């Protein structure tokens, strides 16, 4: 196979204020090859690719395209160099059709009209095996369809180099496989493909070579066939790490939180959680697995009292909390830390100081009309010390902290209030491996203190080793609740896509899954 260089980077550096996002990066992207760009969040992968697509301009260093030195000053330049980027957040106009989106902004060729465009889109789809209806409106498309459209869009504009920024984060296992198949087709057609991801198994599966970044620095490039997940992790983190997560054995306690026949609608009015039953005991971690957007968010919000429930019961130590306000629920000892994509959206006020964020749930205590900042400062100091939060001071706005430290502040505050149930969603999202393990330790400690933990996670490997039980959601329905020790990644994956439904298989059993034998709910109290 011809392996000429498509894009080459030489000592590219980019800084934002005092933060060095990329330092002396050298990279070689070859035609007919899939290159993985691997690195923890904040290691500068996206910044680097944004420089290739003309969004940022490097402070220093050289970029060569097809052997010639170039400067990419705008997305237009990148476009002229046949570089196409598929961003994590789609750049599509919702009310336009697929074809309209594709020809959008294409002023070079006036002859082009919607009909010829549609024909060419069909042609591209046939060539690589995409499944796109040119006349479908974007707002009617699923996430995976939108992503496909983004790829078709850059191919339509003649991209020779495709950069995909975490394309699989929003996809199901099957959709990922479909995407990978298309990527391989494009590779065969001689395109150069860069895929940014931090999922090691995908890196090993799809790529030919892997380039690794750490804290903005270029660490090296290895051939995928010579790499293992351990060797890649070591390069990524910079030291040998044990990927083992402890699962301390704790004596089972009575159920703390019991969810019965719970149905919730999402903002659009569709059923997000469909007739769900489960319970959490003190001293156990119940994992919730599912593809993103399977009702996890709605479930969290409902338990925290932020979302009205349609039907069902939420019983905390025998007491119904479904009609309680968020404040009353907090007072019962249920703590929720939900980390949405932007990490700061709920739970923390990003421009406020650590001190002020400490006070979020307790500021209203007492009769005084004034906020007790002294108390907040003491608490902030304690958490900074206990959890090794790296921050200039207690008065630093939370958004200035790195992801791991933000997470420590959030979890630290929640744990400080001494909850008996912790609901935590994606607590390690965007964290480096060390911080992630620290978070697992904190959760395990809480578990040993007889706290019941609902852990909404993404990484099945982590869930299999950390959680005691795992509940799998698919489109808001429970597919099964399994013992983490007796299941496998494959089984969970199949349940996540709905291919296996243990609930149906088990309906004849005497014990209904998700309902505790020693329930606090008196018989006849439900149904």
């Amino acid at each position, binding site marked *: 196979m011809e392996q000429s260089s498509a894009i080459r980077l030489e000592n590219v550096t980019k800084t*934002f204020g005092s933060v060095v996002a990329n330092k002396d990066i050298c990279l070689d992207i070859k035609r007919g090859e899939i290159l993985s760009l691997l690195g923890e969040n904040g290691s500068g992968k996206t910044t680097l690719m944004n420089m290739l697509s003309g969004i940022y*301009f490097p402070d220093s260093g050289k970029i060569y395209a097809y052997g010639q030195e170039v*400067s990419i000053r705008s997305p237009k330049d990148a476009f002229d160099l046949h570089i196409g980027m598929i961003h994590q957040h789609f750049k599509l106009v919702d009310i336009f059709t697929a074809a309209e989106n594709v020809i959008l902004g294409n002023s070079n060729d006036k002859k082009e009209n919607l009909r010829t465009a549609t024909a060419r889109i069909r042609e591209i789809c046939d060539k690589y095996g995409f499944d796109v209806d040119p006349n479908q409106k974007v707002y009617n498309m699923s996430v995976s369809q939108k992503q496909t459209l983004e790829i078709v869009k850059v191919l339509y504009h003649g991209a020779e180099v495709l950069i995909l920024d975490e394309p699989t984060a929003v996809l199901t296992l099957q959709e990922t496989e479909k995407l990978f198949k298309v990527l391989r087709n494009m590779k065969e057609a001689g395109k150069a493909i860069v895929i940014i991801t931090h999922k090691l198994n995908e890196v090993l599966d799809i790529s030919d070579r892997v380039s690794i970044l750490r804290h903005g620095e270029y660490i090296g490039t290895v051939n995928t066939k010579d790499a293992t997940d351990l060797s890649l992790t070591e390069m990524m983190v910079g030291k040998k790490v044990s990927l083992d997560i402890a699962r301390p054995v704790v004596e089972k306690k009575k159920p703390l939180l019991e969810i019965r026949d719970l149905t919730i609608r999402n903002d659009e009015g569709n059923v997000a959680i469909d007739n769900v039953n489960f319970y959490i005991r003190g001293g156990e971690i119940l994992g919730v697995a599912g593809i993103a957007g399977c009702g996890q968010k709605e479930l969290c919000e409902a338990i925290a009292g932020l979302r009205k429930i349609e039907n069902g019961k939420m019983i905390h130590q025998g007491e119904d909390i479904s009609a309680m306000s*968020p404040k009353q629920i907090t007072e019962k000892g249920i703590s929720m830390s939900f980390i949405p994509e932007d990490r700061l959206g709920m739970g923390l006020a990003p421009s406020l100081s650590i001190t002020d964020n400490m006070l979020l749930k307790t500021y209203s205590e007492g009769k005084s009309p004034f*906020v007790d900042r002294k108390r907040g400062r003491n608490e902030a100091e304690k958490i900074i010390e206990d959890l090794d939060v790296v921050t200039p001071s207690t008065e630093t706005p939370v958004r*200035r902290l790195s992801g791991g430290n933000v997470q420590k502040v959030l979890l630290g505050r929640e744990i400080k209030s001494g909850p008996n149930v912790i609901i935590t969603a994606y607590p390690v999202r965007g964290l480096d491996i060390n911080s992630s393990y620290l978070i697992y330790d904190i959760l395990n400690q809480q578990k040993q203190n007889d706290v019941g933990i609902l852990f909404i996670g993404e990484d099945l490997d982590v869930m299999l080793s950390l959680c005691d039980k795992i509940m799998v959601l698919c489109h808001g329905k429970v597919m099964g609740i399994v013992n983490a020790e007796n299941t496998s990644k494959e089984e969970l994956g199949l349940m996540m896509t709905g291919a296996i439904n243990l609930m149906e298989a088990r309906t004849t059993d005497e014990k209904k899954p998700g309902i505790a034998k020693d329930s606090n709910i008196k018989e006849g109290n439900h149904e």
Partner: protein
Amino acid sequence: MSNLQTKTREPFLRIVKRDGMKAWQSWGIRGIALLVALIICALFVYTITELNPLSVYGSMAKGAFGTTRRMWITFQDTAILLCVALGLAPAFKMKFWNIGAEGQILVGGIATAACMIYFGEILPPWLTILIMVLTSAGAGALWGLIPALFKTKWNTNETLFTLMMNYIAIQLTAFFVAKWENPIGSNSVGVINPDSKGGWLPEIGTNPRVSPYILPVTIVLALTVFMFFYLKNTKHGYEISIVGDSENTARYAGMNVKKIVLRTMLISGGICGLAGFINVSGACHTISEGVSGGRGFTAIIVAWLAKFNAFVMIFVSLLLVFLEKGASQIASDYGLNNEASEIMKGIILFFVLGSEFFINYRLIFRKK
């Protein structure tokens, strides 16, 4: 690859964000901006009039601070502008875009004028004043509350809503001016109760060049101290900053966001209404559209430039009022028309506001 771009030059100019600038640096930049603005103004004045710019600036200072009376009028106008800015600060801090201060001031002014006309010569002065304070603040609060109610109930856009409320208030003012017209045919209300001074804010002290201005300035200074601590140290202020920063977080913390929005807009509109009261009862003693006179918009600049710090707002509003007074003084001293002084005001504001860009970003020019 025939259409490959071959230029290898980096862009001539790039804009890069910077963070964590030290306070002295940012104030330095603002100071330099003011200096540059003054130099440009000087050039401008010199080229069109060939006057000595220094004497023009001297004349500006004279216009604002030349006599005891002028100085106190400047202080009083500063106080009124500051009062509006104090009203806007909590709303904007909550990210509620209250563009409706004009209207809130006017309805406050109308309420005040109504009290002066109907009760000023009947009720004892202290009672009249008390009723005026309550009705003007109430009218302003109502004007602020209506958009807030619609926002919390139906999620309407508060920017448009508050803006449109301004026009209703302006038309209402026109209506009441026509109703209370005095003398008939003058199309103005004229000074209300010129002899009895019923409903006028009392004068403090005996020096006639100072005494009418003391009370308005004092009231607003007291409000400034209140607002500073209200925003910074109270639970209400804490709630306002959380809602402004992240509504989801506020809900998550168990705050009643709707209640906070309504309460804050009551306060915001109420204080703007009070500004109308201070102007009508304490300064102009009449009602016209000039009672707000664009202050509702200028005050937005004051609040934002001061980053909602009530004490910094004092200086920002003083600067703006100084420019205003100075500009009209040079217009009359040198026979420049009003536009010339407006241009100078514009130049200075342009630089002062524009300097914020250099505080947040830095420019990188192409290296040779």
